[in-house]
């Protein structure tokens, strides 16, 4: 799982032993324990499947209720009726803008910050990194009340850029941490050659380090994007006008005003809203390749 683990081509040396270990572990087990494992897995799998299946089945059921059932006549009616500008398209577009903005800013700022942290000896480096680690752990969602007050003070309520900057700031500690670790895995010798040629640090960063850690940057980017995409509480408190609200808030409003009667549409909306991040997750799997421990869970 460790995202901090090296995923760049340069890191093959570290990755290889892990693969060997995995191969060794895949050795056959004795039958009874295998049978018990299978039963346990099936049971857990069903428990995880049911709520997911409810969303999927209800979305195609014009007469969906809170109970799970196979639709009598499956249609796309739910999708076509929520697929309007006001209902889904604009909120999804807003989600895209907010998540992309957050991810771009976070990644850009993290890369800049990670470079000196990864490459130079600095007096405050250790304490800075501990500070980052500390900030990573704070339960930021618990403090939306003071955040609201701060936004009143800064006159940033209902401002999409304000929301983006706040979300970027909250994902920064994690992103800096991850980026720095990815950057650490890029051998410094390549830059040293560039320095000798008289290239500036920024030039070395852009021309040598970044291309080598592209998969890592993609992972951080998608990670931040996904967090922003799924965030409900922050835009719920900070964004008010319908033309600014992302899908997370729009779907909550929908649930509040139509939820008790229109479960099918709610499910269809949920699918439209959830699909992009599910696709992105698969992309992370692909990008980080076999060395990415998470892959084990999905690819088996």
């Amino acid at each position: 799982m460790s995202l901090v683990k090296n995923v760049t081509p340069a890191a093959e040396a570290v990755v290889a032993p892990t693969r060997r270990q995995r191969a060794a572990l895949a050795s056959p087990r004795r039958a009874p324990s295998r049978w018990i494992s299978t039963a346990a897995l099936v049971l857990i799998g069903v428990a995880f499947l049911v709520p997911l299946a409810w969303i999927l089945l209800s979305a195609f059921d014009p007469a969906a209720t809170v109970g799970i059932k196979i639709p009598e006549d499956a249609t796309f009616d739910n999708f076509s009726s929520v697929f309007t500008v006001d209902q889904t398209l604009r909120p999804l577009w807003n989600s895209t803008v907010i998540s992309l903005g957050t991810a771009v800013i976070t990644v850009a700022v993290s890369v800049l910050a990670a470079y000196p942290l990864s490459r130079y000896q600095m007096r405050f480096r250790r304490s800075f990194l501990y500070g980052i680690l500390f900030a990573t752990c704070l339960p930021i969602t618990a403090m939306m009340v003071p955040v609201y007050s701060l936004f009143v003070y800064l006159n940033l309520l209902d401002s999409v850029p304000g929301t983006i900057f706040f979300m970027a700031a909250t994902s920064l500690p994690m992103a800096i941490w991850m980026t720095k670790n990815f950057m650490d895995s890029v051998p410094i010798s390549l830059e040293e050659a560039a320095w000798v040629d008289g290239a500036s640090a920024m030039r070395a960063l852009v021309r040598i380090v970044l291309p080598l850690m592209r998969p890592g940057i993609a992972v951080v980017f998608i990670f931040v994007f996904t967090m922003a995409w799924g965030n409900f509480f922050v835009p719920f408190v900070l964004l008010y006008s319908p033309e600014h609200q992302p899908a997370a808030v729009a779907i909550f409003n929908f649930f509040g005003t139509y939820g008790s009667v229109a479960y099918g549409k709610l499910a269809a909306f949920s699918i439209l809203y959830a699909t992009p991040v599910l696709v992105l997750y698969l992309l992370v799997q692909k990008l980080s390749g076999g060395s990415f421990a998470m892959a084990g869970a999905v690819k088996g």
Partner: protein
Amino acid sequence: MRGKPALGILGVVALTALAGCSDDGSSSGDDASGGATTVKVAYQKTTAFHQLDDMLQKAKTEFEAAHKGITIDLQPIEAEQDQYFTKLALMNGSDKTAPDVIYEDTFQIRSDAAAGYLLPIDEYLGKWEDWGQFYENAKQAGLGDDGKTYGVSMGTDTRALFYNKDIFAKAGLPADWQPKSWDDVLAAARAVKEKVPDVTPLNVYAGKAAGEATTMQGFEMLLYGTADTLYDTDQSKWVVGSQGFKDSLGFLETIYKDKLAPPLDQALDASIGSRVSTELLPQGKLAIALDGSWLPGGWISGENAWPEWDKTMGFAKMPTQNGDAPGATSMSGGWTLAVGSHAKNPQAAFDFITTALNKENTFKYDTENSQIAVRKDVAEDPAYTAYNPSFEFFSSLVDVTHFRPATPDYSQISSNIQVAAEAMATGQQSPEDAAKAYDTAVKGIVGDDKTTTG
């Protein structure tokens, strides 16, 4: 060379985003260039409550045609009432997001005026010829603590018991039912429970999520029928520790404990109000509802039309606790349109209100949403009284009706009434304990010296 432009792009994005931070306010207020003005209107809209949206859409078209260069930006807040208040309060927190025209409940006016969210409009009203058409009590409803006017009344309402005659027939209850006391109400509910078991006998709101409906349609309809009251107007003090308060909670406790009221997953949900009017009553799943005079509006026309409502539903006055004079009770509230204190162009905002609440649009709204008209020219229009057969009954309740305490603290105290009511529904507290918790909360809000023992 591959990396350089990439970093450049990142930098540009970051810079534009930073710059965007400062000029994002253009969505509200006026735009200096060309004198174009936008008036932002914040109001509530739900599946069960679309009449206001209909009326404002119409007013927008008319207003924009008459006032070139002014755009009406309608911003419906799609939420049940309690969430609506929260969202509105959050928007009012900052002058940039504060709406120019606000759909404001009369009980919120004093509180929001005190908070500085609303603009006094006396000076504009003085020049509006229609203002003379408004009844005196409707003008009163728009007053702030400082005696200035902050809202133009759209209509008022009363509350009473709705009952389903078909279910009553099955339960052996009369078609012209008029209970004389709380016990009579309970007896009818018990008869329904016994004879028509698959129907919910009685709904009295008691959930926090239902918000002001729990306070006003629920608790206050009970309390104001006891010997006690919520607020002593003569002393300007809140009443604590009264027997009537405990008895009212006791009534709620009884109906929820004895399963005369809806199951809790319905009762405590924010959508209970919508469900009562669009599902439970029309589908014959609820026998008696203590609710507001606006309900028939949704049955006469619109998405949730229910043509048979007039034949099926009966109306009865809510009796006082033991039948003491005047025998019945009701509560009246109502909503206004108000101008936000940060409106960049208050004249335009006020002018929009005069369009939205002119005779024609008031007529449209008051009929479609079953409001008791507060404009003389609407109330006396024969087409108005003919529109809805329930008007006569609900207007007659004006003789016995009460108004909520007009103080800025009311909205916070109302929230604490909801807490006590929900404790009855869930059975988490006894009426005595809940009343005690309420007393403590009230003292915390207004201070010991502003309370009196009932």
